[in-house]
């Protein structure tokens, strides 16, 4: 316990402090290892969404109030975004966008919790813990979502245009059939850039945001509120915007898969 508190005192060794905080709570080695912090908090937030969503959906009162009203507000907002962008027919796109928005928002919002909270809790339970509380701060999470979306968009592309049409799009666009290999290269880069940029954007934003909180935590305690408060308030905006961007791009990529160029 004493050792743990010593470890968590930032001013002693700033480099160690930052290093510790950038480490995940990892078990296993190599590729077959799990970041337990990411998995557990991600699953916990997923359960929160399921619980709240189910509770709201079961509320059958005529005039919506409270949680139901709040949920309908989000549903309405997401539905409007989907309607504006996605013109194909799909039952999955709107709930997918909803899930992306809410889940990413909640994961990002973990950033507003104190940076040392999880480590302190773990140490209080006797674990020598270096954990990161923000699941969207892990490339695994952002790539898990963006690759899922990418696979779904490939599926929809093939479903909407058929194998032939889908293949043709790779070979004949954007420069016509005489530049076939070049087209293929361009198209591959374009397609692969989608999930990569989607994942990296969210990860980068949240990583930077968290890092700023770490740096503020290094300062004397009486300076911290002066800086962390405005940053947290600004961060509320970033959290929401990043969740929104991820949702909108998800819808856009899926609608692009549906429409031919």
């Amino acid at each position, binding site marked *: 316990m004493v050792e743990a508190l010593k470890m968590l005192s930032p001013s002693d060794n700033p480099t160690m402090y930052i290093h510790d905080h950038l480490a995940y709570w*990892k078990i*296993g080695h*190599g*590729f*077959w*290892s*799990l*970041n337990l912090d*990411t*998995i557990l908090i*991600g*699953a916990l937030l*997923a359960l929160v*969404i*399921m619980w709240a*969503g*189910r509770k*709201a*959906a079961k509320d*059958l009162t*005529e005039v919506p109030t409270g949680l139901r009203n709040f*949920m*309908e507000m989000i*549903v*309405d907002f997401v*539905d409007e975004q989907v309607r504006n962008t996605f013109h194909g027919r799909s*039952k*999955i796109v*709107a*709930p*997918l966008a*909803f*899930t992306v928005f809410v*889940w990413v928002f909640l994961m990002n919002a973990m950033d507003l919790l104190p940076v040392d909270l999880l480590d302190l809790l773990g140490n209080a339970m006797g674990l020598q813990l270096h954990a990161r509380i923000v*699941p969207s701060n*892990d*490339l*695994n*999470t952002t*790539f*898990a*979502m963006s*690759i*899922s979306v990418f696979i779904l968009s490939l599926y929809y592309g093939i479903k909407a245009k058929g194998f032939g049409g889908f293949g043709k799009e790779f070979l004949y666009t954007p420069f016509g059939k005489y530049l076939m290999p070049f087209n293929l290269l361009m198209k591959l880069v374009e397609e692969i850039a989608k999930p990569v940029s989607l994942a990296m954007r969210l990860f980068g934003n949240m990583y930077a945001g968290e890092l700023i909180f770490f740096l503020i935590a290094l300062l004397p305690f009486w300076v911290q509120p002066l800086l962390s408060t405005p940053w947290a308030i600004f961060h509320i905006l970033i959290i929401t915007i990043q969740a929104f961007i991820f949702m909108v791009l998800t819808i856009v990529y899926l609608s692009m898969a549906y429409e031919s160029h």
Partner: protein
Amino acid sequence: MNVNATIIGQMITFIILVWFVMKYVWTPITAAMEARSKKIADGLAASERGQHDLELAAHRAEDIIRQAREKASEVIALAEKRGGQIVEEAKEQARTEADRLIAGAKAEIEQEVYRARESLRQQVAQLAVTGAEQILRREVDLKVHAELLASLQNEI
């Protein structure tokens, strides 16, 4: 920056979450919202229909009132006409009645005059006979001269 098996775990979480949201959250909530908006639209349509009906009824009522008023004025005109007629008739009747009464009275008067003259004549005749009787008491037999006297009575 290390991608590891966590990505698979997060993918599974994500897929389960999407499936759950689609089946148990999104679908029932949007269905309920749609049903509600339909209900509201129906209610608005019904209210509009009601408004329309009300307008129609007001028009009809106005029509009926107008018709009633026309009819009433017609009836009044007719009644006035009829009244005039009745007065006219009554006047006519009164006039004929008066004429009849006057004629009756005149006839009666004439009769009365005639009767008076008759009785006067008889009395004169009587008187004459009585006078003649007294004059001729001795020389004229009443029975003999009765025929003469009767013819005299007729002549007067």
